[in-house]
């Protein structure tokens, strides 16, 4: 029996338009047949499209954590609107009649299950030692080292020229030259450089001649210098790593530093699994979510902030949706249930490493889960701050780590919002410098009184180099009864 509600189907849709179109098919009564297989695992039907013959669509729950969508329509969206419509119809309890599975569909089902079995057998077998093509690798690493020289030249030129003398025009030229880094197998380094040049672009990522305000220029200068220092670290650490790699072709991508990712190494799930970077049977609760536009990378970034119920570690999921492929990559949505993952893959990283999984099931969030979440909060702010500072001092660290903090009081000191722990340690709240999420402080006075004492805050830390203050932005509050999201 398939358990489906409209919210779950909403979550499966690639974007809100797809969901809307799927629902519209039911409203327009386009489904001429709605069937469910005898075993109850397969929904199939026919939906009238613009052509003469209806589309044959099906949703196969043979693997409950990973449904298979099939449709005879030419859409490149998965699931397509017909699949979504079929699921909405089921969720809306439209009459589905039991019917025998058509032969062609049954054949496909069997093929898939055979393929999966084969994969399972292959996965269970001991991995074959990886053959390294030494000559090809040496060629690639040399190209990368040459790329590092290019990067170094660009960075040093920028420093010699002076951040203050950088103009939008020059930044644009620099971005053009940085394209070479992509050809040198260093896409990550190119992104890091764009992170610098984009400081001189407008909000939409365009280089214009509009003169920024004096205050804006000051902020840009500080950010720019920090970014240059990071690039300096990328060059130093990257070059050392690449040289080692050149000497030892069998050297594995290191998991204790994120340098490989900085250069542009894209970890694959299989690779993470092979390196043992997995956790079995993890249960995750999403505590916050954001979706922001990154013009430097020419993509939208959907970030989920999750706590693992067992360990209380806060990890992030990231879905990168390049502008060019927006229609085909599913936009992530906020998740309100508890996600159970058989095998959670964890990327190398420090405080909030990225996580990924390929199959999951969701169950409703219960009060007991919230109790567990709250038990993982840091009640000693001094110790938490110490840990954060230790993270921040590494040149390639995540500059805005996230922690769960259990506060005794949320109040105000001289117009500033403050949280205080039992020992009287205080942290000042701010929205400044963390624009990925919508501002959240404005919502605090509208919250019920009960949230101002003895609750948990999911907080993003940021050290402001100009004021030299370490402050936090509240993303969510976790009470005994609910997660109050303050951003998305």
């Amino acid at each position: 029996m398939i358990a489906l509600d409209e919210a779950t189907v909403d979550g499966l849709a690639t974007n809100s338009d797809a969901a809307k179109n799927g629902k519209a098919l039911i409203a327009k009564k386009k489904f001429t047949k709605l069937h469910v297989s005898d075993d109850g695992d397969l929904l199939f039907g026919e939906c009238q499209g613009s052509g003469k013959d209806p589309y044959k669509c099906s949703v196969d729950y043979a693997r409950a954590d990973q449904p298979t969508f099939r449709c005879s329509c030419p859409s490149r969206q998965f699931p397509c609107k017909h699949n979504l419509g079929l699921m909405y119809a089921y969720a809306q309890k439209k009459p589905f009649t039991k019917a025998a599975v058509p032969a062609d569909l049954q054949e496909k089902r069997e093929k898939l299950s055979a393929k999966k079995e084969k994969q399972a057998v292959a996965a269970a077998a001991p991995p074959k030692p990886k053959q390294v093509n030494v000559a090809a690798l040496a060629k690639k690493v040399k190209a990368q080292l040459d790329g590092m020289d290019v990067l170094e030249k660009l960075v040093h030129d920028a420093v010699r020229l002076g951040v203050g003398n950088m103009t939008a025009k020059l930044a644009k030229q620099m971005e053009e030259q940085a394209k070479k880094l992509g050809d040198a197998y260093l896409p990550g380094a190119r992104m890091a450089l764009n992170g610098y040049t984009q400081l001189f672009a407008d909000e939409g990522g365009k280089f214009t001649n509009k003169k920024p305000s004096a205050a804006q220029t000051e902020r840009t200068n500080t950010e720019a210098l920090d970014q240059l220092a990071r690039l300096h670290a990328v060059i130093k650490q990257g070059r050392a790593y690449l040289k080692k790699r050149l000497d030892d072709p069998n050297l594995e991508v290191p998991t204790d530093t994120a340098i490989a990712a900085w250069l542009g190494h894209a970890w694959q799930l299989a690779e993470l699994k092979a390196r043992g970077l997995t956790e079995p049977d993890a249960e995750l609760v999403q505590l916050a979510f954001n979706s922001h536009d990154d013009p430097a990378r020419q993509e939208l970034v959907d970030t989920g902030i999750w706590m693992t119920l067992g360990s209380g570690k806060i990890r992030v999921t990231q879905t990168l949706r390049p502008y060019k492929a927006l229609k085909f990559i599913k936009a992530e949505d906020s998740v309100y249930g508890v996600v159970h993952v058989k095998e959670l893959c964890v990327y190398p990283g420090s405080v909030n490493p990225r996580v990924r999984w390929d199959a999951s099931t969701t169950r409703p969030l219960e009060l007991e889960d919230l109790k567990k979440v709250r038990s993982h909060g840091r009640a000693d702010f001094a110790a938490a701050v110490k840990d954060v500072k230790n993270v921040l001092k590494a040149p390639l660290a995540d500059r805005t780590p996230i922690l769960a903090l259990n506060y005794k009081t949320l109040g105000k000191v001289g117009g500033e919002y403050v949280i205080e722990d039992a020992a009287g340690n205080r942290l000042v709240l701010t929205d400044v410098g963390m624009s990925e999420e919508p501002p959240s402080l404005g919502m605090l006075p509208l919250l019920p009184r009960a949230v101002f004492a003895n609750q948990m805050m999911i907080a993003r830390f940021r050290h402001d180099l100009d004021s030299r203050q370490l402050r936090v932005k509240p993303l969510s509050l976790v009470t005994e009864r609910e997660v109050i999201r303050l951003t998305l």
Partner: protein
Amino acid sequence: MSIAVLSQVYAEARRLAVAGSVVAKGDFRLKKLIPPLQQAGAQAPVFAKVAEAATAVVEGPETGSAEALLELTALASAVLYTQGETGIDGKLEPVESSSLGGSTLQIPAREMKPLLEALKGKGGGRFAPIKEAVEKGHFRDLRLIRPALAAIDDGYADVADLIADKVLPMYGSAVLDELKAKYDLKGTKGHPRRLKLMHRLDAAGTRELVKDALDKGSKEVKVAAISCLGAEPEDRDYLIEQAASKTQDVRAAAYEALAKLDHPDAVAVLAKALQGKDLFFALRAIEESKNPKLAVLLATEVRTSADALLKTKDKKKASDIADRITDILNSLPDVTAPELDAVLLDLFARRAELAKVKGTTFSGNDVVESVVMQMADGSMAARNALVAAHAELEPSQLQQAFEAGRVCLSSEKLYDTFAPYLTATADRKRKKGKDPEWDKRESILDGIDSDFYLYQWLDPDDDEDDSDLDDSDLDDGPVRERPKPNPYDPRWLDVAVALKHTDAVQALAVPDHAGALAFAQAEFDAALKKAKQPGEVQDQIVTLLRVEHPGAADAFFAGLAKRPKKPQYYQYYWYSNIIPRLPASAIPRLEEALAGFPKEIVEHVAEEWQERITKLKAKHAPESSDK
């Protein structure tokens, strides 16, 4: 102390990075910091390292300046990152919470994100999603309060008005402080909305702001402030004073506020306005107020003006007065008032006299026309009077009398009264020249035709474009209830058939009427015989369907089969409108017909046809019965 030095080093490094590392060599200010760093280095090795890096910057070769400066910056900032200040001194005060109370909700990011973009954006296409969110109650999500507050200044007035009227009031006093903080009495656009909203949420607390706005506000804010007046006796005098303002918008706002007051002084001001150049504003104020007492004013004004109209000899003046009277009659408030009835009946009684008055542009006849229009839609007394006078009415007025009769006469009485106008001409054609009998017959037929909407009958479900939240939902005054018309006497259809009047037969059709069935068949047969293309029999097919002729579906396909040598898509297009009324048995034939269309037709009609066929299938599908 050492950290202070380090901060200075960072500041100098930053300065050099901004200026360009080429000027770093020998930098005097950085150089000065090296000795204290070295000194501190004796205790903490990290300072020694920083001292070394600083030395490399000021003394190293210019070619390595960039690298040296970056090294220094990285070192200094790494230490500073561990020194961020966190605390804050002072007394911890509680947060003044203005909790919303009631139920709140958290909508998924997938719905939140586009809504935030719509609220903050500038382009078109934003109103619909915001309106949809209002309908779904999504604004109970706390995260939308700030964006909604900001949207009160939206450049697109519809969005800003929707937010001010439907969204922000929901938050009640929780948004008052924010509204007050942003409010600027010299402002325009969002600021008048803010003032009105604050007044709506807390009339007493906003009193002072309203007074200030009246005194010193911008024109727009002042107009908004006037609309907030009326609660206090002192307001009246002020409003009366403002009704004489030189600014038109201010006067209009004053009239509207005065129309809401039930006071003789306010009424006097409005009465005066009705006589002068502010007629339009006063009318609008009275119409919106829906106050029956003010309708009396209009009745008096109409009566005096009509007297003047009958007396004047000047054509220009007559035209002006007639224009004013029709303006007033056309904007009567939707209320029941005996005085209004009386004046309508009085003018109606004097219609012959009025009709004689000729003006340059408008004349007495225009006044009579407006009077008849108002009576046809008016009280039972007015309708009865109109019907009673049917024999004396002009042909053009007879339709109104017929429509009035549909409500106030029984089915039989309506037939007995008005059917003779049809039967009188049943056996003859229209006479050449003037033929008032014929005109009267046409007037009645128009009346019959006017309450049958063919498209709505063909496809009653086809209302997808209509939104639930219509603009009319935003008006919330009392509306006069109108009685429903009585059903038609069955004899009407006999007459329509005898007249061979297709439109009337369509409008009056009932099933199993032998005459109507035969008429529809004969009409179709004749048309089909002559037809060269499908479009020429479509009207006859509709008649067959209306009278529920068993051969209607066959006729549909026979019509389609009239294919000319060079078919045009518009000859087929209309047929798709008929599909919803076809029986289930027609489905296979419809599909066959669609498949057999030539290419140039298919590309124009296929989608529409397919959609309607699918809908027809769904309508006749077995499961549709239990929905």
